[in-house]
């Protein structure tokens, strides 16, 4: 009798013990769940980009509704960092230690991302698609960090090539924000123009805090430029256009993917944005690809009623696509190392962004972690519609 009780207790204990242990040894993965994290500024100076994180959430809702990935639902952890790096680091640490996030995706901003980069890389936590086009992500490359935002330098090259080769422009000027974003663009434009034996006729820096751009536009006008690249924030792009119109200076304006939300730019500028040529790194929200339509259906179903279907929101889908694809390819046997190796094997993967390819890790080759090298060029038409001018261009 006594022996039986001991056996029963022992069985019960072992059952409890083993039930407590996760079936999968990898952090953030259980039999039925995969934990994915992202931060996004829902408040503060960069709150407009908060829709990236919400877009990713809708994509995961859509996937979960279809039954998840190989029987595992995605549990999505997101938090507001207010674009304050100290808070980003706090949130990432807390989630990493409390929940044990399997991988991070997206994450708006260079400064918040840089604050958490070392922490994630030391712990070998994969991080896919930081949402800013900084060279910091790939110099030096990290084994667990996969960038899919195209480099600003590349966008500038694409635009210059288009202006010179297709449109036959000769005098290109550039207005650039005096930071990493603007300077990378400047570098690209100079390199590309040098190939054609040209140089910029004017390089005009703008500070983030500037509000009056009259002197800047005056200099542009004096330079006699027929094409002007605007490597600035949407706000400054609009001020430049307005000021130039008042001064009767009407070159071909060109701008970056940052200013490629046409309906929005067109509405704020009251039609001034029509005719502006920009690069884009993802299909427009109103394009007719089957995948985009599927996402739109998910948006209608899962997104909050006052959510806007814009480029930042769809970017949230796009940034998470390589991760989702790699998770599918991993199958049931999901570990971080496996995920990294599947990501490395992505070749010309096409979602709603340009084709994405990574390569096996090599410290000396930053491009092995820069997935996307493609953009297309488009023009804003009446009413903010997007006219695609070129196919996807691969620029290096």
């Amino acid at each position, binding site marked *: 009798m006594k022996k039986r009780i001991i056996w029963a207790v022992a069985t019960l204990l072992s059952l409890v013990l083993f039930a407590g242990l996760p079936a999968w040894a990898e952090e953030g993965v259980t039999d039925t769940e995969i934990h994915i994290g992202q931060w996004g500024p829902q408040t503060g100076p960069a709150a407009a980009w908060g829709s990236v994180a919400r877009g990713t959430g809708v994509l995961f809702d859509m996937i979960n509704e279809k039954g998840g990935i190989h029987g595992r639902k995605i549990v999505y952890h997101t938090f507001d960092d207010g674009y304050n790096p100290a808070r980003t680091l706090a949130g990432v640490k807390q989630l990493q230690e409390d929940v044990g996030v399997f991988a991070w995706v997206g994450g708006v901003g260079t400064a918040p991302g840089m604050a958490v980069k070392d922490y994630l890389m030391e712990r070998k936590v994969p991080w896919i698609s930081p949402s800013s086009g900084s060279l910091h992500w790939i110099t030096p490359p990290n084994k667990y960090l996969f960038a899919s935002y195209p480099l600003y330098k590349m966008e500038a090259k694409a635009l210059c090539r288009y202006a010179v080769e297709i449109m036959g422009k000769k005098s290109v000027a550039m207005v650039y924000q*005096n930071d990493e974003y603007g300077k990378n663009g400047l570098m690209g434009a100079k390199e590309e123009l040098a190939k054609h034996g040209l140089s910029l006729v004017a390089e005009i820096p703008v500070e983030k805090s500037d509000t009056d751009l009259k002197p800047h536009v005056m200099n542009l006008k004096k330079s006699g430029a027929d094409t002007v690249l605007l490597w600035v924030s949407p706000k400054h792009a609009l001020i430049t256009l307005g000021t130039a119109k008042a001064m009767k200076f009407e070159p071909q304006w060109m701008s970056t993917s940052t200013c490629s939300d046409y309906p929005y730019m067109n509405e704020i500028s009251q039609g001034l944005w029509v005719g502006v040529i920009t690069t884009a790194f993802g299909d427009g929200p109103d394009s007719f690809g089957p995948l985009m339509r599927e996402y739109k259906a998910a948006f209608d179903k899962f997104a909050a009623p006052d959510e806007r279907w814009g480029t930042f929101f769809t970017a949230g889908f796009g940034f998470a696509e390589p991760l989702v694809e790699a998770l599918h390819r991993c199958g049931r046997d999901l570990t971080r190392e496996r995920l990294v190796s599947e990501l490395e094997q992505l070749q010309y993967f096409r979602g709603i962004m340009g084709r994405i390819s990574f390569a096996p890790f090599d410290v000396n080759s930053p491009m092995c972690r820069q997935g996307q090298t493609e953009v297309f060029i488009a023009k804003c038409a009446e009413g903010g519609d997007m006219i695609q001018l070129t196919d996807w261009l691969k620029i290096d």
Partner: protein
Amino acid sequence: MDMKRDYYEDVAIFTSRWIIFWFCALILGLALFPFIADKFLKTYYVYVANCIAVNIIVAMGLNLLVGYTGQISLGHAGFFAIGAYATIVFMAKLGLPFVVSLFLAASLSALFGFLLGLPALRLEGPYLSIATLGFGLTVTQIIGRVEYFGGRQGLHAPELVIGPLHLDSDISRYYLFVLIAVLVCLFARNLVKTKVGRAFIAIRDADIAAETMGVNLTLYKTLAFAVSAFLAGLAGGLYAFILGYIEPEIFNMLMSIMFLAMVVVGGLGSIFGAIAGAVLLTWLDLTLRNILEVPFLGEWLKVMSRSWFSITGVSNIQYIVFGSIMVLIMMFEPLGIYGLWLRMKKYWKTWPF
């Protein structure tokens, strides 16, 4: 009131044996905290403690200026930035050891504090706050335009090494930060209890009267700015290692306002207040983002937001809560948390009779 029988009793840092006892208990508690956090909580709390320690150092400095000397500064993020940048530049570009760099950076920050103190001699109230606000904004603009400081691309913090010690984890950095914070508190307490502190308080209460009593206004006002800036610079140098990466945008105006809010909410003109304010506001700043995950309350906030406001803006609730806490404290207790503490002490004084 405590009765003082001679001068040395008045300037003593510890006024009674009980205070020494509780101080030792506090130090012991602080020393054990990482182990407790590691064992029962998460090391995330050690990170929060590090942020708090850094903010205590700034608040202590700002309190000397605002609470004790009666000058205002809305530009402390500027001194903070100078400290952070100078520490990293001295270490990474000039190859100086950490302790030397940190001290030099704080001294550089103090020099700027002295310079800012000069116009402060002739400015008061809102005029002074605008002047200091301008200073804070200018510093980040200048740093952002100088390539040597990394411009807008920012700088990476090098490895934190003191002699043979590599402080590469939150826990190891915790001991350094807390040690410095405790020393700063003792320094501040010593300062306000002695000649310099009395001069500060005299200037705050009536600067003309102070001058007629023989207090050198030029010397003490600029000194207050320099000391305050020194501590802000010191904290900035430590903050650079919390983040591991700095760029000018981090040191924005909101940061200066946060520093000022810590001092005001904690209680102007008290060491305890500066500590309490820094602890409360840092903790709120770092944890209020989780307000929507609080059981019941979070759900309720979401439902309310969905039906009355916009659900995409629900995160803004944290600022409403943040602001309300500050307003409530100031409304019911102008002396801030320190005032609450005084009242509590008074209430329990005769207990249990």
